[in-house]
């Protein structure tokens, strides 16, 4: 049996139909219940539904053998995992946005960055030698520049509508993010056949 951790919310909504096409089906009734751990119909897979940021934690500790999670979360967590498959779901971008398109160039000495992605922001500006003050928020990051809390934000953008409605434009793109299948290093060696079966099944529906 293989345990798969899935990020609740956006990723879950696109991952479950993909899994169903790959032949891994969950009971609708069970999914809609409040149970956090479920078996699939064949009894071959156990699913646990956790907060997206916790998916790398469960998989890195080997509590879950595999996980489905966005690349944004993986970049932020810096978890030591195998990433065999890009599932192409929940496509979005991690960007730097500001009210002024020239915000980075105009900054004097240091910029204040509001974000949920402290580690990604630090790495991004660090690699360019730009000193930053990271202001860690847990939501509604778009408010940062408008309220004067920060000069720019680093956030996930799908359509850009929220940015626009809050008077922000994209200054630069840091990375593209899609849903990934991640695998624990020990499970990969100890449950080789079962993991390969899941990877192959998903690969065939991703390619089509």
């Amino acid at each position, binding site marked *: 049996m293989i345990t798969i951790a899935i990020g609740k919310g956006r990723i879950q909504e696109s991952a479950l139909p993909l899994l169903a096409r790959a032949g891994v089906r969950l009971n609708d009734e069970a999914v809609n219940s409040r149970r956090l751990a479920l078996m699939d119909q064949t009894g071959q897979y156990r699913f646990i539904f956790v907060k997206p940021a916790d998916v*790398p*934690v469960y998989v*890195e*500790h*080997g*509590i879950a053998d595999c996980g489905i999670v966005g690349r944004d979360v993986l970049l932020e*967590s810096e*978890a*030591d*995992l*195998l*990433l*065999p*498959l*890009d599932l192409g779901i929940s496509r979005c971008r991690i960007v730097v946005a500001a009210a002024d398109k020239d915000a980075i160039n105009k900054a004097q000495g240091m910029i204040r960055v509001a974000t949920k992605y402290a580690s990604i922001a630090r790495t991004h500006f660090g690699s360019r030698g730009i000193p930053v003050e990271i202001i860690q928020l847990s939501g509604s990051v778009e408010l940062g520049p408008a309220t004067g809390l920060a000069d720019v934000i680093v956030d996930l953008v799908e359509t850009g509508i929220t940015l626009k409605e809050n008077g922000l434009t994209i200054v630069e793109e840091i990375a593209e993010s899609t849903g990934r299948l991640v*695998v*624990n*290093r*020990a499970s*990969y*060696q*100890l449950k*080789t056949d079962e993991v*390969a079966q899941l*990877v192959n099944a998903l690969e065939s529906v991703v390619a089509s």
Partner: protein
Amino acid sequence: MSITSRIPAGMRYYIGAEARLRRQVEDVAMSVFEAWSYEEVITPSVDYYDLFEQGMGQREAQRGFRFTDNDGRLLALRPDVTSSVARMAATLLAERSRPLRFCYAAPVFRQQTQSHAEWRRENTQLGCELIGVGGKPADLEVLRLAAEILSRLNLQSRYCITINNVDIFNGVAAHLNLEPAAREQLRRLIDTRETAELQRFLQNYNDDEARAFSQPTQLTGKRDVLRAARSRITNARSIAALDSLEDLWSEIAAHGLESAFDIDLGDVSSLDYYTGLSLKIFVHGAGSSVGRGGRYDGLTGSFGRAEPAVGFVLNLDALTEVLARSNVQDR
């Protein structure tokens, strides 16, 4: 809460039954080492930081706890034992007849752990080093030793040892004339098995050899993964490494250990340390590897006497944790 009631991160107590189990695991390993004529060695807990930087490379050595001596020189609480044993072999025991066989059960300390799942900053390594003899017999000896310890711990059919030869990757990287940054990127993509990114990267190299790694999820298995690699790889260095890995595999099979071992051509995690065989040890119930090792023919040379050497370590604390948990389940 007073500061003395707190315990630093990554440190723990072992009490009663758990301490006893831990000692039993240690005794099993040390008795197997002894039966194979490995002499116990106890190395200094504190040594010059330079020793570890030379022995493990800067990136690994920097994880250690560091402090200064009276004269201002940088010291470290040993982050590994191998560096010290290699220095001892090259200096103190330079005149002793070869091969040298040493084993140890010793705590090592890392201020910074390698991954989030590695919580402990103090780990006891059960390890051995076979110095002064190269080639297949020495490689096979340490692999059989590792397998014997694991089966004596009743982990039969619950463990897997993966083997690779780092020169397979090194030969391909040299053949493709990769710059250091590109080589590191290729190494990382294979290590994390990022199929899509890897294939995008390899498109820049219109070369059949590059395709040897283009399916990173198909690099693990038995003898057939060698066959697949041979159909792509033609450079002499990689071929020699494939030959020696296949020879070793035949010996493993001859000793009836085929089911406990896997070849993993994608194990490229410590390329700059090992010079031939590299191995990792996995046990059901542990989320990361519980042991690793390989051949490091370059190491003793940096202490003034170049000679072949091979060894491995098992993590006593990780093994104890797995065994303690399975004892509870068995009850």
